[in-house]
């Protein structure tokens, strides 16, 4: 029973991992750019949730969409102001571009919010459910389920809508997309917007049950990289499965071996998979 409990909480966390990792994989898939600031986007979204609650006195019903909207805008601005220019440069410029952004965001957060840990009150989404003997905190249940729904929604947008088809067209063949009348810059800005909005939602959800600090994005970014590598670069369904798997592995190893070792286990597994299958578990090309 305890084991099942651990697995369920792993799945709920993994679903949030899947959500923000989908954003990273979308940006990668669109333009072969790694967003090293992805974890810091999550961190910003957590602070958006925190300040929306403490200053504006609004709950998750409002601060989750607010964080999504703000991060969407941040993603668009980062693409238009930075990424669009550095992608024309050598590969190192691309890496340093978003890496530099990560540092700027992180130290701006230190300066603005101080290094102190803060958190939202536990009872914001109150209570614990008892489902057939499984005890699940309402905040984690909300986070996990909502993240799952949005990740699947993102996949449906990419595969079933005209917008998704245009986004994919740009990633497949930029010139051919232009021949269709598609403006690649606009599509890439939208992809960055979506990618960042996914961190917005995920960050606001994580803030419901996790402490917030300027460096909290660091470990989350690592999770996202692991998930994207395992799931295959550019694949949202891959990110979903890998995200859930990482959530469960983390939870199980935390329970069986001890919380201190769970990160080590996840990354060892990651290295082994990369060694055996460099394209990722579900990667195609």
């Amino acid at each position: 029973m305890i084991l099942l409990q651990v697995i369920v909480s792993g799945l709920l966390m993994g679903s949030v991992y899947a959500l923000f990792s989908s954003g990273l994989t979308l940006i990668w898939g669109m333009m072969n750019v790694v967003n090293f600031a992805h974890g810091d986007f999550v961190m910003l979204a957590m602070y958006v949730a925190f300040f929306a609650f403490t200053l504006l006195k609004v709950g998750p019903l409002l601060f989750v969409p607010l964080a999504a909207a703000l991060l969407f805008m941040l993603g668009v601005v980062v693409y238009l102001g930075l990424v669009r220019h550095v992608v024309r440069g050598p590969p190192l410029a691309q890496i340093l571009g978003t890496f530099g952004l990560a540092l700027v965001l992180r130290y701006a957060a230190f300066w603005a919010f101080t290094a102190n840990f803060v958190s939202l009150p536990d009872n914001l989404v109150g209570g614990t459910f008892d489902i057939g003997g499984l005890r699940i905190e309402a905040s984690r249940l909300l986070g996990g389920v909502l993240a799952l729904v949005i990740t699947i929604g993102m996949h449906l947008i990419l595969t079933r809508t005209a917008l998704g088809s245009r986004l994919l067209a740009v990633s497949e063949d930029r010139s051919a997309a232009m021949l269709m009348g598609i403006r690649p810059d606009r599509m890439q800005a939208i992809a960055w917007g979506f990618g960042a909005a996914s961190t917005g939602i995920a960050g606001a959800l994580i803030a419901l049950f996790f402490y917030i600090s300027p460096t909290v994005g660091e470990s989350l970014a690592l999770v996202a990289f692991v998930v994207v590598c395992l799931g295959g670069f550019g694949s949202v369904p891959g990110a979903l499965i890998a995200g859930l798997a990482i959530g469960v592995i983390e939870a199980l190893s935390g329970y069986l071996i001890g919380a201190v070792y769970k990160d080590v286990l996840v990354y060892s597994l990651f290295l082994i998979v990369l060694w055996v299958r460099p394209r990722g578990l579900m990667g195609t090309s």
Partner: protein
Amino acid sequence: MSLLSVRNLSVRYGDLVGVSDVSLEVPEGGVVALLGSNGAGKTTTLNAIAGLVPTAGGSVTWQGADITGRPAFAVVGLGLALSPEGWRLFVQQTVEQNLRLGATVLADRKRLPVLLDRVFTLFPRLAERRRQRAGTLSGGERQMLAMGRALMSDPKLLMLDEPSLGLAPAVVETMYETLGRLRGEGLTLLLAEQAVELALEVADYAYVLQTGRTVLDGTAAKLADDEDVRRIYLGLETE
């Protein structure tokens, strides 16, 4: 007045010359062929008109307006569509998705089903393969899809880069029948071809490119009959 006129076009790829001096006119309702051997500059010319490659000199005029240097996504909206060399299909997407992408610039979205029907009538094979990924199509089907996709923007002028390249003779035959049908519907065509005889059959006017210049032009009938032209410029056996 010509629908499209290109004057003294030049295009460079870094230090390399793509074309150095190309001039041509495409009258409304006409079918114009752009002939020339490997590397003569046919693709470069079409790509420059479509806005895929920047021009180094000369001008492109569309319905009296100068459109030189406009980006490709703006050009297609004006009514010039290109079915490019190598087809450039979105191979991960379905046949229907490719066709719908072709209709991106369509102002009147209600026309989309009508245009889709037209393409499926022209190419029944595409209707059968509608939900299949473009990457699974045969060469002939890919050519049909590239052409159908270009038609989905409801262009006034359809530019085709080597519609016969790499296709089986029977497929080429049907392809050219389709071109005949399209011209019957009043569509203006500009086609680049190495398959000279076929092109001269369907075209009413032709330009011959040699190392990046238009060296010769005339009605298709005149070019097809002139022995010297056939031998020297078109590389055809004289009877």
